[in-house]
């Protein structure tokens, strides 16, 4: 059975070029970059080369990029930097952030910080006036994600950043889903810090980065050795960094094509699936991740849908409670105001560079039967 991977926002397979760069590095570039001998120094050079590939993808200077172990670590670090370098006890974020930001903020609350979780409208947008109203004298950080990972909405980051700048508040954005999917140019941006992750752009898992604008005070989250200019300790994950660099290089070269091609596929998939009765499209229709389709199907539960999709070779995700391992449907779907019974029936299909039109056609053809079947089994479906 052909496997149709439509969960690119969860993680991506690696591109062949990235894979071979990494495989080679694992074998050859094993020297510790802190070492004096050539083997170590070569590793160090390759790290700088990779930093030099990531920089243009986001319009940054190489020295503004610090490698981390993941997007999660980058998010945690950004909040830590605000806490340790700014005087004040208040932070602002929004209700539909990734847990890497939300739970970090909640941990800060336990330490005595006050956090405002801004509500969002049905598209996932915060109210800019409300943001301004919530800013206090002791606000040290505004953290609003660039692109939402579930509903795909692209936030008005520069407008938010302009407010932050005007008020002199540090502005962080979780750019994990934006990287490689949205044109980014930190050199003309209001963003002070941005989180990134390699495994969302056809790179390996276990490597990420935090962009930190020049002029920002930095303190480490992980203490230890002098790596990353003393700001992020631990022996560098050299092969991971090299692969991240290669993935970034490709993403930069292909960005326009990537967005154009995916957008077409996405809209075709959306139009096809919205033919199914009692379906609700989530997120903004156009201001959205080029590969993200998120739809709720009434009367049915997400995990069941995923299992039946898996049985026909389709990999997808859902914001239902059962798939998140928690009791409630995803906080994002709740955040945009969906009632429980609709949110439980959510399906997220995220397309990527290996998706072809036939895959889209296949899902359009087979999903209606799956929905039908589950609805027949559901006590909630109205009797015909």
């Amino acid at each position, binding site marked *: 059975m052909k496997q149709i991977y439509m969960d690119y926002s969860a993680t991506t397979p690696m591109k062949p070029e990235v894979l071979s760069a990494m495989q080679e590095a694992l074998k050859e570039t094993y020297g510790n970059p802190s070492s004096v001998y050539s083997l170590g120094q070569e590793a160090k050079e390759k790290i700088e080369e990779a930093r030099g590939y990531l920089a243009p993808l986001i319009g940054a200077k190489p020295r503004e990029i610090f490698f981390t172990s993941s997007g999660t670590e980058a998010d945690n670090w950004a909040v830590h930097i605000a806490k340790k370098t700014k005087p004040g006890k208040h932070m602002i974020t929004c209700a539909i952030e990734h847990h890497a930001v939300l739970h970090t903020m909640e941990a800060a609350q336990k330490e005595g910080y006050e956090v405002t979780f801004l509500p969002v409208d049905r598209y996932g947008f915060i109210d800019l006036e409300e943001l301004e109203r919530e800013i206090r004298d002791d606000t040290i950080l505004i953290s609003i994600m660039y692109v939402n990972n579930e509903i795909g909405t692209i936030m008005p980051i520069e407008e938010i950043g302009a407010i932050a700048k005007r008020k002199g508040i540090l502005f962080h954005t979780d750019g994990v889903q934006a990287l490689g999917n949205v044109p980014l140019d930190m050199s003309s941006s209001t963003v002070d810090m941005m989180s990134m992750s390699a495994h969302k752009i056809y790179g390996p898992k276990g490597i990420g980065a935090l962009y930190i604008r020049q002029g920002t005070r930095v303190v480490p989250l992980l203490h230890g050795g002098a790596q990353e200019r003393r700001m992020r300790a631990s022996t560098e994950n050299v092969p991971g960094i090299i692969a991240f660099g290669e993935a970034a290089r490709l993403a930069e070269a292909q960005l326009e094509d990537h967005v154009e091609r995916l957008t077409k596929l996405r809209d075709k998939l959306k139009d096809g699936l919205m033919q199914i009765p009692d379906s609700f499209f989530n997120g903004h229709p156009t201001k959205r991740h080029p590969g993200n389709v998120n739809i709720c199907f009434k009367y049915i539960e*997400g995990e069941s849908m995923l299992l039946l999709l898996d049985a026909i070779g389709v990999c997808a995700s859902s914001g239902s409670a059962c798939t998140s391992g928690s*009791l409630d*449907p995803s906080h994002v779907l709740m955040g945009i105001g969906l009632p429980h019974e609709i949110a439980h029936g959510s399906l997220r299909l995220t397309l990527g560079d290996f998706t072809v039109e036939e895959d889209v056609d296949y899902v359009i053809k087979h999903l209606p039967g799956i929905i039908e079947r589950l609805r027949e089994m559901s006590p909630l479906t109205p009797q015909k």
Partner: protein
Amino acid sequence: MYNKKVMDHFMNPRNVGEIENADGVGEVGNIKCGDIMRISLRIKDNVIDDIKFKTFGCGSAVASSSMATEMIKGMTIEDALKVTNKDVLKELGGLPTIKVHCSVLAEQALKAAILDYANKNGKHYKELEGFSPDEDHPHDEHELEV
């Protein structure tokens, strides 16, 4: 995640549907938690002659509904009331820990259906004493001590 037997019951659920003019119907669950189950019964001579279910829920909810109905079909009411969630789990060969709570619905729904039958027919089962179909089933905790 799920073993073969669970997947079989999920992919090919037994006894799906609704019995027309059923002798007893029970519905339990909570839309908030994402699982609702309805069981309808046909009772003949104190025996569960037919049983059908409809479930809105995840794989384990569907599979345990299917398994439970299969186990119960043909039992006397007294025997059926002795079937617990644990028995269903055992027959299924186990569920992932975080999924166990999704399987308690079947036991609850059956009890609710029998209660409905009992109420309609003026019967009394001591196994149902203290049972309330509207009570939430327990959920697991979210803290960790290794």
